[in-house]
């Protein structure tokens, strides 16, 4: 049992465990919509697209999270607008907006006098470096996201399953998509900073995709995604501790293995 209790003597390990649990729940709430609406590419794209916001905040001496949030909201609205006005598929809209935003960030960065280590920490993230303040803000964002998605659940469900009927009864399908994109942006900004890009995308996409293979309803899919995310996070953290490997990447590998298992044992009706 020592392998189980030994790591718990370190505060950073306990905080990392708490972080992956919270982030798994948060990503499960949003990840279901990401997977169902074909937005899997958005997690990775959004984590890059926040760069101009970060650099802008850095140059202005402002709050990095606030800068990233502004960039995430602009990216989300930009993707929604390009997708709707051009008639292009969502993945093309995501690609166009995200490289544009990322390039803007790089250009802004080249005008910055020095490269800050704050910035690289923010972009890369590390579950073992989580602070108590990070955990509180993650809890706050999780509650906010749960509130927003819960409030608009039935509208999002109809607009995703049958957008034609949703429009016929007068739902603003385009605005609901914008709302979803903004919420995804909010989640990506928080989770990337907390656990890193790779793990953030893995929790957003891999766990939810595995859950989709096994669940018959959206509620079960979200619960299962959260459960699988937590399982992968806890197992991955312990593995990384005993094998002395990078924590984020180890959790991602466990999540990928869970997905492969789900694929093998999926329900065939």
């Amino acid at each position: 049992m020592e392998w189980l209790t030994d790591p718990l003597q370190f505060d950073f390990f306990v905080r990392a465990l708490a972080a992956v649990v919270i982030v798994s729940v948060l990503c499960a709430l949003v990840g279901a919509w990401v997977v169902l609406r074909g937005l899997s590419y958005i997690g990775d794209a959004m984590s890059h697209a926040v760069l101009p916001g970060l650099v802008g905040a850095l140059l202005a001496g402002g709050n990095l999270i606030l800068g990233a949030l502004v960039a995430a909201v602009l990216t989300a609205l930009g993707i929604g607008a390009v997708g709707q006005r051009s008639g292009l598929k969502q993945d093309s809209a995501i690609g166009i907006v995200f490289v544009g935003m990322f390039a803007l960030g790089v250009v802004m960065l080249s005008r910055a006098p020095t490269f800050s280590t704050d910035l690289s920490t923010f972009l890369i993230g590390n579950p073992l470096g989580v602070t108590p303040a990070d955990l509180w803000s993650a809890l706050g964002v999780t509650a906010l996201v749960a509130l927003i998605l819960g409030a608009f659940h039935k509208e999002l469900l109809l607009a995703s399953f049958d957008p034609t009927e949703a429009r016929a009864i007068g739902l603003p399908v385009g605005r609901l998509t914008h709302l979803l994109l903004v919420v995804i942006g909010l989640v990506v900004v928080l989770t990337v900073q907390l656990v890193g890009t790779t793990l953030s995308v893995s929790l957003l996409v891999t766990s939810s995709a595995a859950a989709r293979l096994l669940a018959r309803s959206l509620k079960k899919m979200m619960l299962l995604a959260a459960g699988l995310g937590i399982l992968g996070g806890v197992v991955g953290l312990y593995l990384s501790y005993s094998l002395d490997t990078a924590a984020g990447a180890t959790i991602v590998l466990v999540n990928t293995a869970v997905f492969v298992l789900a694929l093998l044992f999926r329900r065939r009706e």
Partner: protein
Amino acid sequence: MLGVENLTVRYGAHTALEGATVRFEAGQFSAVIGPNGAGKSTLLKVLAGLLPDPQGCVRFDPGHTPRQCVSYVPQQQTLDWAFPVTVWDVAMMGRTGRLGWLRWAGRADRQKVASALEETGVYDLRHRHIGALSGGQRQRVLLARMLAREGHLLLLDEPLTGVDPATQEGLMALLRRQADRGRAVVMVTHDLDQARRWCDHLVLVNRRVIADGTPDEVYTPHNIEATFSVSHLGHTHAEA
């Protein structure tokens, strides 16, 4: 109850429908019939308010606000049947418009959904994943959603496609009952025989309204030829 006057719909340079004037009444089971590309689904979408700013008029009679009274059943192939929803979830979607924003379904909504599922004969399948059902069962679930919506105007795009003949009979009888209860039912279909047997109002369309009236008035060799470019015996002009 609802009509279009001198309606023209163009997609770019293509004219889908030109100068169409037709009226649909409460208590009437109407079928819009025509070949592929004739503008049938376009007419249905205009009635559902899905095409913004068509040329011409769409008139609802006083007392019927379109959004409150329309229930639209799309073609089956437009939906993602792998979506993680159960039969019950899909039927409950019919209550979304009635409930409005920031309101949850209550006991009365659940009762309405249950009776809609019972009426369409799929209540016992309510816990099943929608993707696990046959084509006919899926259509019944979509009809249950339509009933749960409690619309006065029911619009159905090709409800008989992909459904076996026995189930088709059941679906048509169900739609007939809705019309008999005072709802206006408008169905787009290719199936002239089913439409003649069950509907009391036929509209033949081929980019314009060819004929509009009771089955006896509409079902003439001349109208059928003008609509499908075939004789009523099924031979094309070229074959004849």
